[in-house]
């Protein structure tokens, strides 16, 4: 596969935006400014971005409770996102969804989902729309390793196979489901082998390697757009932080994360590769970093200062008409 340097810079920008965003969110949660529960995506940036670089606004993704990274990768507005996480007016969902339920249909983002395994059935619906409307669109569902066991996910794979839907099952194996390890919760199984059993191409890639994800996704998207049906990709990338912010992570040995930061940081790996193999300099990347820090700083300040929804918002948006 060939890589356009402009695409690579864009990919870097999105990955860095996720990192910066999540690190900031972490500090904000610790400072107590963020309502509700927040699940951070650090360490998994290359998955969302490697996947979404192939998608248009008219393609759809279904997300999870750990959805900030997916939103950013899919191109959702950072301010809208922050306003939503802070449950403020003007948020992506006008403040009613919060971190675990934010959606942006204009950007093809079908919603974070606080029900584990909730999104894949919805995402295949978007794939069905693309098929019926004949618009060459594709749909993708992000699915955690823990979610991979949920019945809804298997049903969705079977449905996609039956109807040859333009669908990609993107498994994010980040090593844990809450406080239990992926080595245990799927018994003697393996996400990729299980997916292959459904009669679709299924590959396992290093989820900290943008290029590995990007290449696998490229093949899957092409298949999908050509009407050849669904694919499965398992991207392995451990999460850096707890299940939610506040998790003591007793299930994890000391040093595991230090090791990840040192040897498996998707951004460091990306930078090493692009500065070596492409005409991209570390300085360019630093500029992006700085720009993003500033953008996110400003956006967070803006979001914190923004007005809350008015009280009548409790009652609106239940129905289109009633």
């Amino acid at each position, binding site marked *: 596969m060939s890589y356009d340097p402009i695409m690579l810079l864009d990919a870097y920008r999105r990955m860095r935006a996720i990192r910066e965003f999540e690190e900031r969110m972490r500090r904000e949660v610790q400072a107590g400014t963020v309502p509700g529960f927040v699940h951070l995506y650090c360490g998994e940036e290359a998955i969302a971005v490697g996947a979404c670089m192939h998608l248009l606004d008219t393609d759809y993704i279904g997300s999870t409770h750990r959805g900030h990274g997916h939103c950013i990768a899919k191109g959702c507005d950072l301010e809208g996102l922050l306003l939503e996480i802070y449950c403020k007016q003007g948020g992506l969902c006008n403040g009613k969804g919060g971190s675990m339920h934010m959606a942006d*249909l204009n950007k093809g983002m079908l919603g974070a*989902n606080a029900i584990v395994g909730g999104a894949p*059935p919805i995402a295949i619906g978007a794939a069905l729309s693309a098929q*019926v*409307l004949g618009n060459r669109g594709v749909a993708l569902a992000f699915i955690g390793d823990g979610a991979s066991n949920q*019945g809804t996910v298997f049903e969705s794979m079977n449905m996609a196979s039956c109807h040859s839907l333009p669908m990609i099952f993107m498994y994010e194996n980040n090593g844990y489901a809450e406080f239990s390890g992926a080595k245990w919760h799927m018994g003697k199984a393996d996400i990729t082998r299980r997916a292959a059993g459904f009669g679709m191409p299924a590959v396992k890639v290093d989820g900290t390697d943008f290029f590995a994800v990007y290449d696998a996704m490229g093949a899957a998207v092409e298949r999908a757009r050509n009407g050849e049906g669904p694919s499965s990709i398992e991207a392995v990338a451990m999460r850096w932080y707890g299940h939610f912010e506040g998790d003591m992570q007793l299930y994890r040995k000391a040093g595991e994360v230090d090791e990840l930061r040192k040897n498996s940081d998707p951004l460091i790996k990306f930078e090493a590769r692009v500065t070596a193999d492409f005409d991209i300099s570390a300085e360019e990347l630093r500029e992006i970093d700085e720009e993003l820090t500033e953008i996110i700083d400003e956006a967070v300040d803006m979001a914190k200062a923004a007005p809350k929804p008015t009280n009548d918002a409790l009652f609106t948006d*239940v129905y289109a008409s009633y």
Partner: protein
Amino acid sequence: MPNKNIRDAINETLKLEMRRDPRVVVFGEDVVGGLGGSSGIEEAAGGTFGITTGLAAEFGRRRVLDMPITESAIIGMAGGAALTGLRPVAELMFIDFIGVCFDQILNQIAKFRYMFGGKADVPLVIRTMIGAGMGTGPQHSQALYNVLAHVPGIKVVLPSNAYDAKGLLTTAIRDNDPVIFCEHKAIYTESCEVPDESYAIPFGQAAITRTGKDVTVVALSRMVLLANAVADRLAKEGISVEVLDPRTISPLDTASILASVAKTGRLVVVDECNPFCSVASEITSLVACEALSSLKSAPVKVTAPHTPVPATPHLEQLYVPSPAAIEKAIRATLAG
């Protein structure tokens, strides 16, 4: 005007709406049938009860899709398709099967619009069969519409005759909210005059199927037929029964119910659901809370008992509210 039964009225409505709007798609288990079979026939089923007969022939399998037996995927798919440009009419063969796809209704479809801050239309219809009386046993005979009506964000429709079935289904398909359309399996062959052309009956408007002044009977779905028959019988005795068919329970036409009770002062509600947290409880509660002073006697609920539906035919008969029980309830309100 031609006579049509409920089944044919629904079939006709699906065809009219599919002709009218290319975004309308129909799917479910064996809505066509025959894929992967050895005969190679084009339409081996047309729906378990023949409701979707002829759709695939006219609109093709791209818009009329068979589905594997995976209700969460079917209903979730309808939700996702509705968010992204289609207007799906999905079939959940029996309402009893909400158990295997309830999350997609309760936490996804019903909440999309709200969770997304009003930025989503969710134009989908779930057609499903309800009710006892056909010997289908405990797992295929429930009413359960109260469970769905409880959930904010969805609408629940209970047609009791072919004319309403057509008009309400038309509205359901054109509506931008998720609608559960509950077809009582024991009245599919009930017929009445139904125009050939399209028409829409608005949601939240009860029909008064019998006018009367002594007592109001609010009846739902198949129970409307029973209530009408009882009303007709009692009319001969000089007891004037007003029968009200809400037609949709979410939204519920509370104004018509309250107006009727204001007139009659007496209320019976006939509902095939199990009693606890039933629509019958909801409606009697409504009247007690909103119009206590108009009640001349205690309202009476006629519902199924707090038991599953037995497979045993004569016990199933006893399970369903009977004309005798309705009559008894009416007399009780008159005596009270």
